[in-house]
């Protein structure tokens, strides 16, 4: 084991090209998924927070439930959509990074939407009378509230990023863990551990941990500083 740790650190320090390739692809896939999911889910969450409509309670329950969607199920759903016989089969996306991005979007969109709904609803409660008095329409209130909740929402988006970068089931099913094409950190760790190649698995595990920890640390620092400065 000690030896495995040593080799792992060597891989990291020497910027092993295989390792770097896997880390880069992981970041590309998860960041793209987070950006796209957030662009949809933040306004969606805000809209659900602001509008009363029939079935709203059901929508909220479903969104909350989908936060716990098992990654393998999300992967399976996207697999069925993208497979040759599936409705989107003609695009030939299965086993490409694009498919992995789609699967991760399915996975984290409910998380970002459900959490931002909560954040925005609380803020709307505070702002509502003032904004109505200023004759701000609900549509206009959405960007206003999203902007004013930006520090809380940063945490929400990071929760999505954490989920995306840590999951293995969805990307494994739709990506196929093809070396150099769709192999990301989590799928590589699973595979290399099975093969007994512990140094590479460990090295990737360490990087994954550091990455998630540092992203959250940065977000925390930014959020706290901004709250102190902007109230």
């Amino acid at each position, binding site marked *: 084991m000690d030896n495995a740790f040593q080799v792992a650190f060597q891989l990291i320090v020497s910027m092993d090209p295989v390792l770097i390739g896997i880390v880069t692809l992981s970041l590309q896939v998860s960041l793209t998924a987070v950006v796209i999911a957030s662009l949809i889910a933040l306004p969606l969450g805000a809209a659900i927070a602001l509008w009363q409509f029939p079935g709203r309670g059901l929508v909220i329950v479903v969104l909350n439930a989908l936060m716990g969607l098992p990654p393998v199920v999300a992967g399976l759903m996207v697999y069925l959509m993208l497979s040759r016989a599936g409705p989107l089969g003609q695009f030939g996306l299965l086993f490409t990074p694009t498919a992995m991005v789609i699967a991760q979007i399915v996975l984290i969109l409910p998380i970002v939407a459900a959490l931002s709904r909560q954040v925005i609803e609380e803020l709307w409660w505070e702002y509502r009378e003032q904004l109505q*008095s*200023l*004759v701000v329409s609900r549509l206009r209130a959405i960007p*206003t509230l999203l*902007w*004013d909740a930006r520090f809380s929402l940063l945490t929400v988006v990071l929760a999505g990023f954490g989920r995306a970068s840590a999951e293995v089931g969805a990307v494994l099913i739709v990506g196929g863990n093809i070396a150099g094409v769709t192999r990301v950190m989590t799928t590589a760790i699973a595979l290399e551990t099975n093969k007994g190649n512990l140094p590479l698995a460990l090295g990737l595990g360490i990087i994954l941990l550091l990455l998630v920890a540092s992203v959250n640390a940065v977000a925390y620092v930014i959020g706290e500083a901004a709250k102190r400065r902007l*109230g």
Partner: protein
Amino acid sequence: MNRAESPSLLPLELQGVTFRHRGLTLLEPMDLRLERNGKTMIMGPNGAGKSLLMRICHGLLRPTSGSVRWAGNGATPETIRQRQAMVFQRPVMLRRSALANVRYALSVQGVPRSERRWRADEAIERFGLQPIAHRPARVLSGGEQQRLALARAWALRPEILFMDEPTSALDPTAIKAVEEAVETFHSEGTRIVMTTHDLGQARRLADDVIFLVNGRLVEKAPVREFFEQPQSREAAAFVQGELVW
């Protein structure tokens, strides 16, 4: 800007307005007329329905029955709302600078960008907020935020300004600033409607008083009359500083 040309919103006429919530009658049938000019204080013990009445007038709440009618011939509901402003007991400021908060209110009302700039600057200057114009609004003191809320309202050039206990959470210096602001609005022709618990403040500022008890309009009288010859037992007790039931 264009308010001189468009017909006045006032008088405001309430007819048979009631408000019920969860089976409780919070406002008994009420007829009320607010004339074009002046400063009206809405007074009464806690739970009398002062804030409620004001929110119904301003359009934040819909009455359970009865009608709220503004003059303003032909004005759409939206323009009617835009020609009013309200200052709350605890102002809500957006997470941006003081100046940006004023600009935001103008932009919402469709004021062109270039005009927004000078009108916001003018409002900031008018209320002596230049030193804090670029500070984040939400970290300002209570008194500063209330002055900013007044500047924001002033920038909108409202025809009528509602104020819900604007000074109840403030220290004497800040209270003085708010009272001066009320006079500023008044001198420029803005109709003032305000709730207060402060008898001295009502004497200083009011032209007339609307006195509510338990959701009932008990008295509406010029300020001197209200304080010197109250017509009802409740008002007599209230101006003596006694508890009113």
